[in-house]
């Protein structure tokens, strides 16, 4: 069948700089670069280039540049190059288009249209270098009433809580979708930072049980890797009902990624596809969710908080309200810009709603119903920097999950081809020669640095607002103003426009 595909990129190589060391050739798992010995020239097959920049970063003479392919079809405002190319691909393959990471489409990013307040004159800003500035939060359920013993002393009647030194956690990314070294980096960083990482639906490698106190284990529709020891070792259990990048559908880890180690962690045979069904087949309604929540609590003697993770969809406020009444301690909501190791392109780019709007309406609904205190809210789906964290918390979140940002800290260049399994940065791959490129010793330090840097910035922003504990920021929407948002958007976000 004829192939009409255009390359996405062009490889520009400065011959005056190239020393024919062939690093690019050895580093590129996509086999873009090759050496023509006869003519002593480096060649490039641009169609294979995914724009991951591994060759650019490692070229010792900076001879390489990857640029956008400048060729184009006849200009058409309706039919973009992308639309045309996708049709060519589907006409050749007859298949569903696959993509990775969050949608690159230009949907509104509400975080970028929200501005943060600061103190002037009437109350003082606080200098975090001189005064204590608290970023510690606890996630979990709060009972309605206090209890006292016969002497009047307060009884600790709090259900299990997760204590976070800073309201940031690493999102669910399974061992299988990402590498052993990526997992080790996340686990060690979470432990050092006093936060949590999340196994995703991939089971837990036996080497990582020692990080259990900082591990959230996931129970998803495929139930891969779930057994008593897995639940017991964790700090919390997350039931994954949905994912922001692919609401309403399950997951598919292709057999080639099910290596010996992955197969053991997932408890499935080597080389078989790991298919997570779209729904949990024991949850067809809210009362079924309640049963799973309590089954997991029973199995772990009510010692661990249970998180229910859902994708941000149109009716999210009512869904979250239902979850809050189903025994969940924490609700995690994943916005539609959230990342994925592989998702059907059409789903990723067209299903779900932005996290900012979902968060605002869920927080409001839970308050209207008087049950916001019963659960903690964790939000995900493209938290890109510390300002996004601050805005999310002021809108009403207790904490944020970061996935893509964590991977970028590990070296991910957002080439969005995780589903191909040939990650040149050793992250989204199981190929041993690629995995070893990610040194967990360096990786975990980069993650610690990232979160520490964000923590510093959060403290500066808090101090500017005259707030010395992040608890006093939660739901504090007066600290936010919108710019360039319409009345309806402001109403949903529950914030005023700048100047008001």
């Amino acid at each position, binding site marked *: 069948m004829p192939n009409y595909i255009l390359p996405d990129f062009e490889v520009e190589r400065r011959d005056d700089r190239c020393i024919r060391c062939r690093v690019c050739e050895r580093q590129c798992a996509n086999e873009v670069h090759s050496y023509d010995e006869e003519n002593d020239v480096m060649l490039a097959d641009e169609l294979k280039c995914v724009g991951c920049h591994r060759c650019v970063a490692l070229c010792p003479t900076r001879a390489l540049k990857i640029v956008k392919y400048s060729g184009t079809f006849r200009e058409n405002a309706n039919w973009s190059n992308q639309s045309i190319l996708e049709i060519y691909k589907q006409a050749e393959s007859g298949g569903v288009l696959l993509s990775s990471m969050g949608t690159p489409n230009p949907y509104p990013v509400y975080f970028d249209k929200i501005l943060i307040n600061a103190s002037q004159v009437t109350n003082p800003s606080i200098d975090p270098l001189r005064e204590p500035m608290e970023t510690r939060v606890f996630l979990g359920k709060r009972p309605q009433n206090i209890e006292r013993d016969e002497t009047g002393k307060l009884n600790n009647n709090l259900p299990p809580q997760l204590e976070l030194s800073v309201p940031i956690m690493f999102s669910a990314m399974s061992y299988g979708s990402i590498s052993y070294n990526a997992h080790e980096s996340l686990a060690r960083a979470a432990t050092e930072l006093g936060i949590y990482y999340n196994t995703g639906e991939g089971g837990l490698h036996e080497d990582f049980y020692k990080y259990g106190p900082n591990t959230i284990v996931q129970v998803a529709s495929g139930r891969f890797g779930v057994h008593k020891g897995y639940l017991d070792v964790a700090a919390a259990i997350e039931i994954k009902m949905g994912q922001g990048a692919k609401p309403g559908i399950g997951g598919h880890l292709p057999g080639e990624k099910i290596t010996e180690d992955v197969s053991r962690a997932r408890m499935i045979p080597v080389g078989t596809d790991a298919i997570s069904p779209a729904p949990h087949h024991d949850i067809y309604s809210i009362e079924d969710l309640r049963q799973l929540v309590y089954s997991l609590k029973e199995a772990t003697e009510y010692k661990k908080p249970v998180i229910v993770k859902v994708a941000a969809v149109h009716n999210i406020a009512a869904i979250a309200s239902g979850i809050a009444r189903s025994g969940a301690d924490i609700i995690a909501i994943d916005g539609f810009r959230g990342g994925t190791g592989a998702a059907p392109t059409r789903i990723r780019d067209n299903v779900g709603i932005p996290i900012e709007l979902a968060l605002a309406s869920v927080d409001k609904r839970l*308050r209207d119903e008087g049950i916001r205190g019963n659960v903690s809210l964790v939000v995900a789906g493209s938290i890109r920097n510390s300002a996004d964290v601050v805005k999310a918390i002021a809108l009403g979140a207790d904490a944020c999950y970061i996935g893509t940002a964590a991977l970028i800290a590990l070296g991910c260049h957002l080439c969005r081809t995780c589903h191909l399994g040939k990650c040149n940065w050793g992250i989204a791959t199981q190929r041993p020669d690629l995995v070893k490129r990610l040194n967990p010793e360096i990786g975990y330090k980069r993650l610690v640095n990232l979160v520490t840097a964000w923590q510093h910035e959060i403290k500066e922003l808090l101090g500017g607002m005259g707030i010395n*504990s992040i608890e*006093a920021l939660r739901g504090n929407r007066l600290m936010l103003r919108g710019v360039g948002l319409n009345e309806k958007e402001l109403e949903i976000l529950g914030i005023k426009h700048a100047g008001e």
Partner: protein
Amino acid sequence: MKLVEGRVRIPSGCAISGIISRDRRKFTGERIVESMKVMRERSNGLGGGFAAYGIYPKYKDSYALHIFYNDSNAKRECEAFLNEHFEIDEASELPTRKIPEITDEPLIWRYFALPRPSRLAASQLDEREYTARCVFAINARIDGAYVFSSGKNMGVFKAVGYPEDVGRFYMLDEYEGYMFIGHGRYPTNTPGWWGGAHPFSLLDFAVVHNGEISSYDANRRFIEMFGYRCALMTDTEVITYILDYLIRHVGLTLEESASVIAAPFWSSIAKKPPEERERLTYLRTMFPSLLVTGPFSIIFCFEGGMMALNDRLKLRSMVTAEKGDMVYVASEECAIRAVEPDAENLRYPSGGEPVIVTLNGGKDNA
């Protein structure tokens, strides 16, 4: 549009003062007015007020409702509501003295009332909760009517003006009580409404506050889950509701409530003995959204005493002193010296350290 409380949020600086006789000896309101007078610099004439305890012995078992009316229509509508929900012993205009410094007064009425027994029984609420909900209903639903005082044997007196003028206007020198608090306001905006002056009060709780809290909206949105409506958008209002919630609904002690709203830093908690550490950790974990940040000094009064409290960093001044059975709290020492030159045990309480004064022979808590 007039910029009034409830439509805009108006930050203020302020002066506060409080005087209590622990032996419940009565003295006139003149002293609190004198105390406030020397702090004139701390207000700007846009709000002053007082709360006085023990002033209505004749009606001590009835709720004394002080109400502002914009006009007679509001009064008519509100009185219909009151008659439906309460048995009213006495209704009269609140006595005032015409003085040139205080103008544009609304209609100011006082009712001594008790819940109608049949209504109260049908509501399945206790008497205080029933009364509180009626107060909320009037303030939220009846346009032009505002209940600014609703306790037993106590009353709030407030207006737009300097505190000493407000005291003269309400003839505070003619009231005798065992505890008074005063407030002078320095709003950074132009409120035109008397209801926005302080103290803020609910049932026998009254709060005067100096500061601008940065946690306002976090606190407001949390407390509104429990039926409170922060209609004025002022810090004092939300702090009053937080204390009412923690003390009356949750059942915390004053000291425990102070550990919630001006919680010690985690670093301080870590240095406490284990039992205290556990208690403070519990309170912070249980009520994180009621932590109040930003500068404040408050005096919180209830029938049985008062609590003075500073924010956790002590970003606002506050002094306490004693003389015999009398205890004084004020923004500045001069406000105490003005009424008790021989005051003893002068102290500057640390940030977050509650100073709790209860009546001798009374209960230890609100």
